[in-house]
């Protein structure tokens, strides 16, 4: 026997970025916290309108860079001056001057890895399945549509009220998405 469909979200589509931004502010002012907007490209000002906090990604990247620099310095000092000191042309076993190219490269390398993997972790990606992927209007968000979605997990979610709000804000094709 099939389980009863469970409501997941109320979605409305927008095609104009001005209307979208206005609607997002109104949804937030109505007290919703668990909502999201799906867009084909980054829309300026959306994160402020949604009231999102600044991304923590720069801290992760910085930590990666610091780790890279430390690794490079320790590696060059320990291998060259401690474990295997070899006199080559009377040059010092370790000096910060000649270590700079490798210091720099490893700092950049570790920062890049920290940034990309930090980005994936903050976005909880990869996640190859989305609850909404059967909804054609939702899939259009990678093409030409802005989708404003109020999730059913929001504490004040009520089907009628959410649908009414989205309609009043100029959303097209306001619909309930079910699992």
């Amino acid at each position, binding site marked *: 026997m099939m389980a009863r469909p469970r409501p997941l979200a109320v979605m409305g589509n927008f095609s104009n970025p001005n209307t979208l931004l206005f609607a997002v502010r109104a949804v937030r002012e109505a007290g919703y916290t668990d909502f999201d907007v799906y867009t084909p490209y980054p829309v300026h000002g959306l994160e402020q309108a949604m009231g999102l906090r600044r991304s923590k990604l720069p801290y992760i990247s910085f930590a990666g860079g610091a780790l890279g620099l430390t690794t490079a310095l320790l590696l060059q000092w320990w291998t060259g001056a401690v474990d295997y000191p070899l006199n080559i042309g009377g040059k010092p076993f370790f000096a910060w001057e000649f270590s700079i*190219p490798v210091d720099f490269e490893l700092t950049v390398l570790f920062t890049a890895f920290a940034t990309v993997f930090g980005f994936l972790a903050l976005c909880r990606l990869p996640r190859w399945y989305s609850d909404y992927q059967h909804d054609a209007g939702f899939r259009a968000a*990678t093409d030409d549509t802005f989708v404003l979605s109020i999730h059913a997990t929001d504490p004040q979610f009520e089907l009628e009220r959410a649908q009414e709000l989205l309609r009043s804000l100029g959303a097209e094709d306001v619909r309930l998405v079910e699992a």
Partner: protein
Amino acid sequence: MQPTPATVATPPHVNGQELQREPLVLGNPTLHDVTEKIAGIAVSRPSWKYWLTLGITGTAAAWGLFCIGYTIATGIGVWGLNNPVAWGWDITNFVWWIGIGHAGTLISAILHLFRQRWRTAINRSAEAMTIFAVICAGLFPLIHLGRPWFAYWLFPYPNQMQMWINFRSPLVWDVFAVSTYLTVSILFWYLGLIPDLATLRNYVKRRIPKALYTFFSLGWVGSARHWQHYEIAYLILAAISTPLVLSVHSVVSFDFAVSILPGWHTTIFPPYFVAGAIFSGFAMVLTLVLIMRWVLNLENYITLKHIDNMNRILLATGMMVGYAYAMEFFIAMYSGNEYERYAFLNRAFGPYGWAYWAMVFCNVAVPQLFWSPRLRRNVVVTFIASILVNVGMWLERFVIITTSLHRDFLPSSWDYYAPTWVEVSIYIGTLGIFFTLFLLFAKYVPVIAIAETKAILPGAQPEHHVVAEAAASR
């Protein structure tokens, strides 16, 4: 409280008409048109032109790989290297290919930081070009090792010989610089691709391509919460790639400048190599983009304005390179060092003088055409000039390497170097590998950054005064 009305700057007017910026995308496409055009390439059947080109480049690649195999199996003796000239076409090609890659990073990173929005039309293909060029570049030092199966000795790893690599050597710096450059370029390119692969995932119908695009798009859905992290990630990668690209060719130039050979031991090398790298890279971007624009009918996306802008960069970097040529001669004269003077006089008037003057013609004279706005927007002139600049920059590396080596400190070792058919074949082979990879990329991966192009279409971004007025009237 009354909301303050947003102030809007009045655009400049001429004869009562508002002055408009030249549009970055022609034909006024909608968001959906952009998806159709770029994603459509991935589902369309390639034309006979595509298969013919792929056949030619694939054959060249196969022949080059065969010659690499022949070199490895027989030994470096099959090349034309001789006693004073131990670096020939192989290192020339290495430096040339690495330089080609630099324009891709310049376009994707530096122009992003400077908010040059015209870069969106070409950044994806330029980044792909970077990766393929660095792959071709990396092959040469590898084969040059003679015993490439020991290439891992270049990396620091604990081993039974209880030895470590020598971090005081510029050749080790080179290993770190080039491998970091390749890795970061791939990460940057892939990050930019994720949203576009998601567009393709939702666009294609056939099962296997859909499964592949689904896998590589990592489940991207375009959530605003994700875009927020994405934009920061992109900015950070651009910010670290900018010094990275400047460092890579500087480190490559250290391979020469840290030695004591007259003609190599100069402090001008790092900036001179970087300027030359960007110069040659832009020439290669132009060559590729002009072909791509013609084959895939992308005239509305890669417009004459883009070509104009790239030609301006070609003109500027060409003059930097010309300045470096002149300055090298001046310093050689001013140093009072007779060996240094001899190296430069020999470079221009010695046995390789033909290469030197061909280089000056291609790199200094040809870009001067682009003072003319009409020629900057002429596709045929640009195409020919871009190929001449590629040739000129290859000759530059050849001239630097060979002229300093072939006149050794001991005149009894002096010799003349010419390549054998094997070296020429390997060079042609890397051109084949490069173009084959680029053709495959152009067919299966969005050649133009879809999301970025959509973001710069007129009306794509909210006008904050409109939103503010709507909020006020409620």
